[in-house]
Every structure is written in structure tokens, then in C-alpha cells.
């Protein structure tokens, strides 16, 4: 077994026994990256010497001692660039560590590599990156999903043992489904957002990409927890997520929301997900049909709320304190106007404009206020459903990975890629995508397991039970 293909527990065993040394792990991974990343283009920044130096000081006794982890280029790591795949932050170097980074370091992890993404996390295909797109390891002519496409492709392509990503409307779960790996979005407030470049502050969450569910649980244990520097982080104590993992699903109830099985889903996706639901039945779980009646409004509500918050969060990129500044500005307005016009890509510009519009005088009530109320109804749909079941089972994405360039001219078509993931962010609840099969063209299909707030134990337990009984997580792309 190639070192780069090991799971974290397997790697830790070899590090503890001395069979492999931390520096060798970095070298193996660097070789793998050198071999395949020219085709996948998952990484935007790699500092092998820095990783080797950290490896030399690694302590394998720590929970992640000597384990390299890749970081999406939107999370601040002191001394490293934090470009957010944007021209406006091309030369920005982070002056501090995000809380999740401090936690990973304390657990002994080696931060190795920054991954590609849609600019400022806005997108569903990683084609909105100022650095060019990432390619799906299963079919290089297709997208890896987005916005955390680089992280998903790196893990799926065995170029990273694990990676951090972010999920605002599905940006972890959807790429995980399209690339065949485990993508976890924790409950809003489970993981600190301190040090995460903000896109939509009431929706953003940092989460994980791993090959297996056990690794997702392991990483969540390390990054979860209250942070006094993030006032939206919850005080709910973080349990040991690995502890209850193997309990099995006998006696659990899973809801299948009828609104998530509509016309327009790829038939192979639907078949794979229904087969997965049968697997749960076979393992002794009860399956109940539920309804989430406000599902049809989720994408609309999201593109009002998220863009409104983004228009505010991205106002800070004005060429004054950091980032790109245009040359020879005539006056301050010219400085702002040209810096932002030159620095932002088209999708970011579209969303800032839409977001400002829905907040503007005369339109605030019809759009923003209304969307926030619909959001409450969407959250309540889930609350009602969770009275009848422990978790929900749905497809993660309505289609497998589409071709690069296919939806770039039609933003609305692109937005609909997130139709099954987006409501989870609006409700602030947790969700995980796990591999549940492949299409006849060998494109990955993902099963989404949705849980209530603070319900990560239940969804991880369900995810693990399915993974244990199926072969998908052992498949490797032909690279």
C-alpha cells in the first residue's frame, strides 16, 4: 500500500512503531503530489521544506502527530498566503493562525499545502478560481465540485491524507460527493470561524474531507469546540466523536424527504441512493417518509441571504489595509472602484451586486426580510421532521460531476447544483456526504446524511455503518 493512500489511523500506527518517519511521510506525499497534481491541480501553494521542518519536530504520540493536513486557501495560517483564489489577495500573507489551525497544531498535525477553491468560496465547481480550475480525479475533463474542490480532489486523489474545507451552501458536501470522499459540515457554531475569511457569516462552517468516516470523526474531535474569539461558536461541549461510531444503526429511524426525490435528478444517482436506503433497512433501521415543504424556496432564500452577507463581508477588500491596490488612483473612490473591479472575479461581483440590491432601500422587506422569514420556516421543517426520525437520507447532488465549462455561462444553472445541500446551511444543522456508488461512466455518487443541531454523533454513526458494509471508500481513481 502506498504511503500516500494510508488512512490516518494506519499512518499513525506506522509512525508510532517507527516503521515510517514523519519526514518520509511528507516526502511520500510530495512525490505523489508531484506525480498527479499537474493533472488535478488541487493545490495552489506547497512548501515542502517548511513541512519537512515541522515533520522533524513531530511527536507521534499526539492525536495527529506527524500527520500532514491540507488547508483550503480561505483559512488563515500564519506566515502562509491566504489568497482565497482571488486576485485581490494575491500577495496577502496571513498574520495569524485561525483557531482550527491552532487546534490542529496542538494535536501535532503538519500543515502541508493550500488547496484551490472558488473565489471567496463562491461557486459549485472550483471554476471561479483566479488560479484556474481543479480537475476531478475520476475524469479530468470534469469539475471536482465547489467551492472546496481542491480539498476534495486532493483527498480523493490520494494527494492528501485529509483536508479542511468550508461549507456555506454545500461547498464541502457537494465536492465530496462528486469526488468520492467523506465531506462533513458540522452544525453551525460547532467549529470556530475565527481566522476563516468570511463569506456569509450566518452560514459558513469549517469542516473536513477524509477517505473514511472514522477519520472525519477524529478530525472533528480536534477542531470542534467553543472559542471566545468567535461569538457564534456554541458552548455545547464536543463529545468524543470516535467513541459511539461503531454502534450500528439497528433501531435508528431515517427519514426520506419526498421533496429531495423530484424529477430532474440523474436516474443513476437516484438508484444508488435508494439502494443505500435499502442497505440501512437491511441493517435494522426503520425508514419513514417525511416532508420538508419549504424545500423549493431554499435556493432562492440562500441567494438572498448569502449574497447580502457577502456584500457586507467583502466591503473590507478596498485596497486600503491589505491586498491589491490599483496603481495611481485619482482619488479615494477611484482607488476603491478600480481595485475592486480589477481584483474580484465575475461571480464575486455578481453576488456583491445582488447582495447589496436585496438590502437596499425599498427592496429590503421584499427580499432580505422575507428570505430570513422563509429561512425560519425551512429550519422548522427540519425540526418537525426530526421528531419522526434521527437523521435524513438524501442524494447530495442531483447529478454526478458535470464537464468543465458546462455551466459557466449560466449562473442560475450553477446555483441549482446545491439544491440538496443548501437548506442544511440555512437551518444551521449538520450534514455529511459519503460515497454510495458510481455511475456507469465511473463518476462518483454521494449519499447525504442530515442530522439535527449538535447531531454529529448520529450522522457519523449512520455513515460509518453504511461505509463498513460497502466497498466504495476503498476505490481509488485511475491516476
Amino acid at each position, binding site marked *: 500500500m502506498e504511503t500516500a493512500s494510508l488512512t490516518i489511523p494506519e499512518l499513525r500506527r506506522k509512525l508510532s512503531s517507527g516503521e515510517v518517519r514523519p519526514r518520509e511521510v511528507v516526502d511520500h506525499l510530495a512525490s505523489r503530489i508531484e506525480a498527479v497534481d499537474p493533472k488535478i491541480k488541487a493545490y495552489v501553494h506547497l512548501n515542502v521544506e517548511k513541512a519537512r521542518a515541522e515533520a522533524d519536530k513531530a511527536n507521534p504520540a499526539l492525536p495527529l502527530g506527524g500527520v500532514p493536513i491540507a488547508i483550503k486557501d480561505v483559512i488563515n495560517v500564519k506566515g502562509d498566503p491566504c489568497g482565497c483564489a482571488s486576485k485581490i489577495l494575491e500577495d496577502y500573507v496571513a498574520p495569524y493562525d485561525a483557531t482550527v489551525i491552532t487546534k490542529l497544531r496542538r494535536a501535532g498535525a503538519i500543515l502541508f499545502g493550500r488547496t484551490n477553491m472558488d473565489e471567496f468560496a463562491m461557486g459549485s465547481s472550483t471554476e471561479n478560481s483566479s488560479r484556474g480550475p481543479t480537475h476531478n480525479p475520476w475524469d479530468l475533463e470534469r469539475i471536482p465540485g465547489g467551492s472546496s474542490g481542491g480539498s476534495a480532489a486532493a483527498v480523493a486523489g490520494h494527494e492528501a491524507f485529509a483536508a479542511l474545507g468550508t461549507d456555506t451552501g454545500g461547498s464541502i458536501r457537494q465536492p465530496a460527493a462528486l469526488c468520492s470522499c467523506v465531506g462533513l459540515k458540522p452544525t453551525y457554531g460547532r467549529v470556530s470561524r475565527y481566522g476563516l475569511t468570511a463569506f456569509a457569516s450566518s452560514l459558513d462552517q469549517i469542516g473536513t474531507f477524509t477517505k473514511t468516516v472514522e477519520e472525519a470523526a477524529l478530525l472533528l474531535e480536534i477542531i470542534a469546540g467553543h472559542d471566545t474569539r468567535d461569538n457564534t461558536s456554541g458552548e455545547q461541549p464536543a463529545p468524543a466523536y470516535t467513541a459511539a461510531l461503531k454502534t450500528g444503526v439497528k433501531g435508528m429511524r431515517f427519514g426520506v424527504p419526498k421533496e429531495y426525490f423530484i424529477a430532474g435528478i440523474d436516474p443513476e444517482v437516484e438508484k444508488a441512493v435508494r439502494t443505500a436506503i435499502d442497505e440501512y433497512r437491511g441493517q435494522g433501521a426503520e425508514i419513514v417518509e417525511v416532508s420538508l415543504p419549504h424545500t423549493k424556496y431554499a435556493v*432562492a432564500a440562500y441567494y438572498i441571504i448569502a449574497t447580502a452577507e457577502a456584500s457586507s463581508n467583502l466591503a473590507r477588500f478596498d485596497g486600503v489595509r*491589505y491586498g491589491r491596490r490599483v496603481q495611481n488612483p485619482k482619488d*479615494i473612490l477611484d482607488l476603491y472602484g478600480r481595485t475592486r473591479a480589477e481584483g474580484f472575479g465575475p461571480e464575486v*461581483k*455578481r453576488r456583491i451586486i445582488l447582495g447589496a440590491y436585496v438590502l*437596499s432601500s425599498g427592496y429590503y422587506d421584499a427580499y432580505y426580510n*422575507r428570505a430570513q422569514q422563509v429561512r425560519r420556516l425551512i429550519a422548522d421543517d427540519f425540526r418537525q421532521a426530526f421528531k419522526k426520525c434521527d437523521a435524513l437520507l438524501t442524494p447530495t447532488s442531483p447529478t454526478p460531476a458535470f464537464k468543465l465549462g458546462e455551466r459557466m455561462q449560466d449562473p442560475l444553472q450553477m446555483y441549482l447544483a446545491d439544491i440538496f445541500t443548501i437548506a442544511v446551511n440555512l437551518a444551521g444543522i449538520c450534514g455529511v456526504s459519503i460515497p454510495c456508488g458510481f455511475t456507469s461512466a465511473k463518476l462518483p455518487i454521494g449519499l447525504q446524511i442530515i442530522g439535527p443541531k449538535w447531531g454529529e454523533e448520529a450522522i457519523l454513526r449512520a455513515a460509518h455503518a453504511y461505509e463498513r458494509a460497502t466497498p466504495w471508500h476503498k476505490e481509488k481513481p485511475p491516476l
Partner: protein
Amino acid sequence: MANPTPDSIDVTYVADLVRMKLSPEETATFQKQLGDVLGYISQLKEADLSRVSLLGEEDMTNRLRADEVRASLPVADALANAPKQENNLFVVPKIVD
């Protein structure tokens, strides 16, 4: 409201509000694209909001801390990415005559 006509975004006006100097091509493209998006999101106007008032308050309390000075980002680090700085200040074009 049955079949409400969607509002339209005046992209030039909003781009000015958000301080982005778009090119004429961008303005025209965004006008069309955002028109389509606005048409889609306008379906929210059909949603029945009557239940919202019955949902009760969200469980949210403001969490405050004691007003004590704590360590924060050192000035040098805060200035490290500045395009132009002088005397621990960010330098910008003159704003007021």
C-alpha cells in the same frame, strides 16, 4: 400576488453603491444574468409567511465578556500587508480638500 413582474436591478447604480467600477460589457452581462437570477428568487414572494409568528423566539442570548484589555494583533503584523504605510498609519489618497 399572482405572477408578479420581477423587479430589475439597476446594475450601474448598485455597482456604484458597492464601489466597483464595472466595464460597459460587464454591466450589460450582469444586467442580463442578474435579471435571470432575480426572476428565480422572486418566487419567494409566493411563500406563505403566516406561520412564522407562531414559531416563537429563537434561543439566542448575547454573550458578553468583561471589558478587559487582552493581547491583540501586534501593530507590525497588522501593517505587514499594507500597500502603503507611514508612521503606523495606512496611507490613502487625500479624501477631503
